[in-house]
């Protein structure tokens, strides 16, 4: 069992912008071909939802949200935080047995690979725009959209859950650096 160490332990709030780390949350990377009917129907049955096919879109049910990462790649995220003591993930095992073992696709547990910053407030995109080439005012970027881009030279995945509610996925080893950058930028708004 992994001894969970969070890279960021504080939470911060500024002028209409606050951030805190959200951990641990199950994250599973899924690769597969949606045009393969076997794969599509099995996934639909296991997850209880259809995987998003359209670029940068998401789909969700009570337990899981699936984020589009590419035409054959998704990130499955649990909606709730997991108890800190456990490091076994039921969903991973079910998917592994049904998808990986049947050679339909690939399952990778990336729970400890990414950490999530939960950002909220009306100034989120004011802060993010300081280091990101993506146009957040674009009409395509509404609620429940997900975008992979760079934020101050760091690869990030930005999931817009609501108007003023964003989950920012960043690699664990970059988390402390990005956190400091966010603090700096937030100070200026």
């Amino acid at each position, binding site marked *: 069992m992994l001894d969970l160490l969070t890279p960021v332990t504080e939470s911060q709030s500024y002028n209409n912008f606050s951030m805190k780390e959200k951990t641990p949350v199950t994250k599973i990377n899924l690769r597969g071909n949606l045009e393969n009917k076997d794969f599509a129907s099995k996934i639909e049955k296991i997850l209880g939802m259809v995987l998003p096919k359209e670029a940068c879109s998401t789909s969700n049910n009570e337990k899981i949200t699936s984020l589009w990462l590419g035409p054959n790649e998704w990130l499955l995220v649990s909606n709730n935080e997991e108890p800190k003591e456990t490091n076994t993930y039921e969903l991973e095992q079910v998917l592994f047995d049904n998808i990986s073992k049947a050679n339909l696709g690939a399952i990778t547990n990336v729970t400890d690979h990414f950490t999530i910053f939960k950002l909220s407030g009306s100034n989120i995109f004011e802060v993010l725009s300081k280091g990101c080439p993506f146009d957040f005012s674009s009409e*395509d970027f509404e609620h429940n959209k997900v975008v992979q881009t*760079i934020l101050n030279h760091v690869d990030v995945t930005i999931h817009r859950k609501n108007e003023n509610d964003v989950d920012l996925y960043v690699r664990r080893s970059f988390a402390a650096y990005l956190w400091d950058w966010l603090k700096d930028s937030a100070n200026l708004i």
Partner: protein
Amino acid sequence: MFIIKCPYCGDRDHSEFSYGGEAHKVRPKQPAELSDEQWAEYLFIRKNIKGLQYERWNHAHGCRRWFNMSRDTSNDKIRSVYKMGEKPKE
């Protein structure tokens, strides 16, 4: 700074992409039968065109997919973007 239209994600800034060299270079079927010169030609020699060039690009900081692009190297105007395995439209 210019905008590239990824065939999967749509319009994105060029800083999310990385360049992958000349496109449509076909690997010789029987490398062992080639002379050193012919092999070196395949491995190292690339066109360096001023004008319309066919290139491979990777959306490295986005969806991580490879695709092809035809671009005018003299003014960075992008003529077309198409998926791997496809032929350029014009």
